[in-house]
């Protein structure tokens, strides 16, 4: 039997925003950042929570962490009501806000962990055990004594993850944990999260713009747009339906009419550059390149994966699934 660790029932968050109306006067409008959302997350699952900017992702996370109080509806996390039991809940959750650090900027990385240990009241033995485990898993040893401000982005993210998990939270919220990371760091972060989830049963809720994060990590994804959950299910389904479209961008020697090639459709032409949309599972990129090269002289090319925002937009346009 799985336990529902996160429960949202009919949750709405409304903000009042001021809009300019005339020189001085302002008009106040109600904006529903989150609009009657309901979902549950079982203990030990990894869920991708995605959607375009302004869709309501961070508002949801802020309600789940107790930062924001919902306008209406019921939120339960680990059996607690976040907005009322903020401090109690804080011991059971970990948060990584991708763009902002929660580490002590001017001090060696090690010091941040010591400070968090006392803030979270983690017993000494447990702290030592976790530190040893994370140091090995994330290869922290080489930069534990380096001030945070001197760390590379990848090193810092590994530090952030450690900081969020040192007090053994039941749930960890990750906001763009791989943003800006190189391939090696990305892989390391993903492996670490998979391990933590498997070995400690930590529930992970992550927001990302990187579809490959979701692919490697999450069996379930929730897509939100304009404050509504518009998709809740697994990734293969969504990829099959919307996500396997890719785009081949080609620079030709000279501008010409749209290339007529089987298996792809020209989306855009700009001077000598053209965008060809094709389905990944019907046609490989190399095969398409070969077909294009038979017809025109290529100077340069690039393959673009479908952006998650495009997927979301397409799902939204096709009506809620």
């Amino acid at each position, binding site marked *: 039997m799985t336990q529902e660790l996160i429960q949202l029932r009919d949750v709405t968050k409304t903000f009042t925003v001021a809009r300019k109306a005339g020189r001085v006067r302002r008009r106040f409008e109600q904006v529903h950042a989150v609009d009657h959302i309901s979902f549950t997350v079982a203990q030990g699952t990894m869920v991708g929570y995605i959607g375009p900017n302004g869709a309501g992702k961070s508002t949801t996370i802020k309600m789940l962490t107790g930062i924001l109080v919902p306008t209406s509806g019921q939120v339960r996390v680990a059996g607690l009501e976040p907005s009322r039991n903020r401090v*109690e809940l804080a011991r059971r959750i970990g*948060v990584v806000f991708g763009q902002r650090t929660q580490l002590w*900027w001017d*001090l060696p990385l090690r010091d941040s962990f*010591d400070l968090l240990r006392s803030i979270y009241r983690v017993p000494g033995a447990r702290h030592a055990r976790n530190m040893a485990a994370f140091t090995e898993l994330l290869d922290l040893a080489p930069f534990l004594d380096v001030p945070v401000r001197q760390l590379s982005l990848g090193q810092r993210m590994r530090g952030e993850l450690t900081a969020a998990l040192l007090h053994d939270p039941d749930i960890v919220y990750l906001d763009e944990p791989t943003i800006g990371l190189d391939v090696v760091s990305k892989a390391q972060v993903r492996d670490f999260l998979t391990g933590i989830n498997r070995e400690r049963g930590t529930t992970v809720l992550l927001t990302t713009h990187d579809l490959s994060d979701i692919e490697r990590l999450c069996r379930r994804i929730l897509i939100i747009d304009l404050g509504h959950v518009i998709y809740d299910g697994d990734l293969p389904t969504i990829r099959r339906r919307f996500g396997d479209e890719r785009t081949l961008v080609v620079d030709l020697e000279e501008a010409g009419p749209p290339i007529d090639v089987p298996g792809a459709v020209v989306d855009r032409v700009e001077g000598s550059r053209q965008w060809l949309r094709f389905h990944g599972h019907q046609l490989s990129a190399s095969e398409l390149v070969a077909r294009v090269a038979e017809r025109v002289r290529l100077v340069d090319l690039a393959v673009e994966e479908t952006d998650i925002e495009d997927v979301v937009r397409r799902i939204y346009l096709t009506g809620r699934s």
Partner: protein
Amino acid sequence: MVETLAVYRRLIGARIRSQYQYRASFALFSVGQFLTTFVDFLALLVVFTHVRQLAGWSVWQVAFLYGLSGVAFSLADVFVSQVEYLPDHVKGGTFDHFLVRPRGALFQLCAEEFELRRLGKLVEGGLVLALACGRVGVHWTAARIIVTAVSAMSGAVIFGSVWVVGAACNFWLIDAREVVNSFTYGGNFLTQYPLPIYGVVLRRILAFVVPLAFVSFFPALYVLGKHDPFTSLGFVRFLSPLVAGATLVVARLAWNAGVRHYRSTGS
């Protein structure tokens, strides 16, 4: 409580270590703070080269006010004034970090923005107070010493509360820093001089609205054995700790209301 203090010490320790990395700037700022406040004191002495008394107060009696107010103010400046950085944390989103940790947000804000270099002012205030105590020519009974010490603490609480109330306003207003400054830095200046030199409106504000008159003026009446020109109620000069307690309650309420507002609007 003991455990919270230990966390506080560690957080402050971390701040001091961070700032120690910028040693030169630390030293310059501390010395600068000492000097700017010392110039204030020189200005006070200059006034007394022209007059022998100010509203019936001699130079060392005013210096006592100055020192007492300085110590109270700089204690608040060292431990609480950091709350004025709240708007930066709200705008930068780091206030959310405080809210997802199992500690009070105000506690974390004060601890994480702690600046040791503000101590320069405390040193100056302490020196002037010590100097004035030696020169005011009163007999230092235990009661006088206790009232002086308690007033310094109460004054620190009053100034600190003003800072917190001001910071809490930032949850609603975009940037209320300048308004708050006029009560804190401005208040520090006002409490360096005897109350009777001000107009009636300002006097009433300082006694009843923003009760800074209890930082130095009323307790000094007792310590220096002076006649109260405003009231015959003798206990008023001992009210500072109670007034401090009341401002603390107001500050707590204002802060909580501010955080509640933040948590419902997210800005």
